[in-house]
């Protein structure tokens, strides 16, 4: 395909990106709202447009297991899931990272049961927050397409060798038709050359993978894992930088909007970012000194960049799409950000809102309420815990 702009569903754009990446194995199991991605991939394989093994597995647990086997032999590997699927594969999700098996997942974020819900929030990814995957959030279709491709470059970098999850809000993004600028196939091929993996399973060079760890070695293995995720950071930046050089579209671990003189900021992850920017534009016209801080890279957490963006503000209004039940301190994003700023000079206070659970709409009006109410709360020192926005009596 030559460089073209097309109006397509974001799920289709993901499948196209996977085709352009010339993936070798796709293993996935259907679950809403991820299904369109893998349906389209199986079509591409059936039509011979993508030369890959499409493995129609018996469960998500097996999907992740097949991906581990495929990545272990050095094949380029893709999967996609949501909520219950991620929960079912979670055992192997952790193992994939621990075994340093590179693969890319499009995670169409959806609420975890119960009650059963097929709509969007971030409770699924937060459940596996500490697995050791590289974790990216995107906010629109173009970012999704771009980051699926960048993710392969990050994952397979010999200095990284980690699985990457690209998080996109279920329905809000997966089912949206957006204009997508597809890059030229050749450009993608040159950005993502396939290279044999160094320690891949092969009879010519027998290696043992996934050995048993006694207490004498487990601690060291965990530190190795921690360093692996931490050290992936500069290579993540490199992958984005090269993509930016080739396409003119640039990505940063933390992105800011109208923050130059902002006294307070709203902090978002994922598709919230778009609405937040619009509302900030409106508030700016009313004279409010407000900006948006968007966290694109959730793991490894960009501590320095975040601090740089946050320090010196009066307050941050942090948006969460999941609850840390019984944690008594706020959603997973807010608790993390509070801890990132604790005891620092110039640290803003943090007011936390949990909203948009199971896809409940958070409109521009809601954002406006949240921002202004949050600012007022911060001024009164009401900064503990969180507010479940829009909770009905």
């Amino acid at each position: 395909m030559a460089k073209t702009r097309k109006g397509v569903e974001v799920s289709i754009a993901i499948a196209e990106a996977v085709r352009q990446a010339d993936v070798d194995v796709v293993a996935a199991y259907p679950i809403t709202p991820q299904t369109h991605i893998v349906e389209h991939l199986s079509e591409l394989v059936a039509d011979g447009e993508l030369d890959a093994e499409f493995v129609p597995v018996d469960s998500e647990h097996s999907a992740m297991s097949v991906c581990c086997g495929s990545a272990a032999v050095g094949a380029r590997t893709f999967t996609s899931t949501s909520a219950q699927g991620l929960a079912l594969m979670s055992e192997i999700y952790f193992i994939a990272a621990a075994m340093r098996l590179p693969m890319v997942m499009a995670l169409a974020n959806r609420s975890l049961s119960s009650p059963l819900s097929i709509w969007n929030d971030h409770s699924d990814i937060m459940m596996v927050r500490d697995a050791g995957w590289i974790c990216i959030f995107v906010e629109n279709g173009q970012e999704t397409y771009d980051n699926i491709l960048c993710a392969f470059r990050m994952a397979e970098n010999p200095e990284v060798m980690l699985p990457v999850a690209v998080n996109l809000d279920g329905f809000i993004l997966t089912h949206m038709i957006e204009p997508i600028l597809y890059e030229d196939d050749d450009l993608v091929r040159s950005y993502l050359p396939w290279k044999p993996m160094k320690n891949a399973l092969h009879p010519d060079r027998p290696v043992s993978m996934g050995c048993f760890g006694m207490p004498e070695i487990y601690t060291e293995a965990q530190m190795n894992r921690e360093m692996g995720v931490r050290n992936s950071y500069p290579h993540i930046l490199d992958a984005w930088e090269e993509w930016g050089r080739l396409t003119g579209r640039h990505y940063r671990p933390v992105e800011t909007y109208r923050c130059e003189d902002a006294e307070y900021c709203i902090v978002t992850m994922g598709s919230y970012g778009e609405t937040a920017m619009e509302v900030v534009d409106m508030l700016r016209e009313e004279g409010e000194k407000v900006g948006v801080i968007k966290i694109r890279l959730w793991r490894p957490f960009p501590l320095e960049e975040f601090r740089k963006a946050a320090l010196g503000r009066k307050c941050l209004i942090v948006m969460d799409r999941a609850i840390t039940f019984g944690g008594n301190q706020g959603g997973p994003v807010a608790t993390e950000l509070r801890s990132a700023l604790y005891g620092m000079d110039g640290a803003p206070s943090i007011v936390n809102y949990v909203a948009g659970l199971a896809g409940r709409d958070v409109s521009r009006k809601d954002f406006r309420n949240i921002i202004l109410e949050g600012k007022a709360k911060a001024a009164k020192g009401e900064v503990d815990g969180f507010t479940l926005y829009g909770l009905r009596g």
Partner: protein
Amino acid sequence: MAKTSISSPKHVEREEFFAPGHRACQGCAEVLAVRLVLKALGKDTIVAMATGCMEIISSPLPITSWRVPWIHNAFENAAAVISGCESGMKALMRKGKIPAKKINFVGMGGDGATADIGMGPLSGALERGHDMIYVCYDNEAYMNTGIQRSSCTPYGASTTTSPAGKKSIGQHTQKKNMVEIAAAHGIPYVATACPSFPFDLMEKVKKASETAGPAYIHILSVCPTGWRINPSEAIKYGRLAVNSCVFPLYEVDHGKYRLTYKPSDKKLIPVSEYLKGQGRFRHLTDSDIETIQAATMKAYERLLRLSEQE
């Protein structure tokens, strides 16, 4: 009986692909089975193994007993992992990313990994038709975690979660028939084996390797620790299991049943010969043993009938 290519020690691969110095218990026939399977497969093999005794005793970091490429991932997913290895290699070779080569893709697991927790992934992999072999090492309980019952634990056996007691015979269910379950997938090759009959075992593994598509081999693997027998008696108990018809050696080759070994009248023994002396069956009464005898012969006669059909 078909002519076999492995009928004496001189036909057996001399090279060892499973190194000595592993940590299995003395007299473990499960690890012997692993060694024989690898000899039959040879060097061009990739193994995905489930959590269990064989994984633990062979891979304490930074040591490994495996001289073929080996991957352990989790308890229930060896079949899925090996199907991923097979799919990955298939794509890489087809696309010319790596040179083409015949490789045996082999999933391995214990009876718990296979018949209980890993049943879904195994069924999925068999149904999808990968060119792979799955080997179940059946020692009739979860040995790695301390002799708990599995669905392959035989009727009447006492384990730590099916203990014989005043009100219980121990395991009160019948052994799950994994061989028939595998065969019901319509896969090209299914067989049983036992390391007490090493040539028969290796012959079947070779056949599985030469068969395109999925193959399933179910190996009775005597575990002296869990069966509460003397470590020197593992081979003997394997023979007793086969000669009492408790564990018949047979194959289902493209749907065709064949007993690969039929105990002669002279060798045929009552199940009591097999049961007595095993600590796990010590509590059985004569009438319990009669029940087991009847069930055993009924199952064996069914196999005889099936293997006589054209």
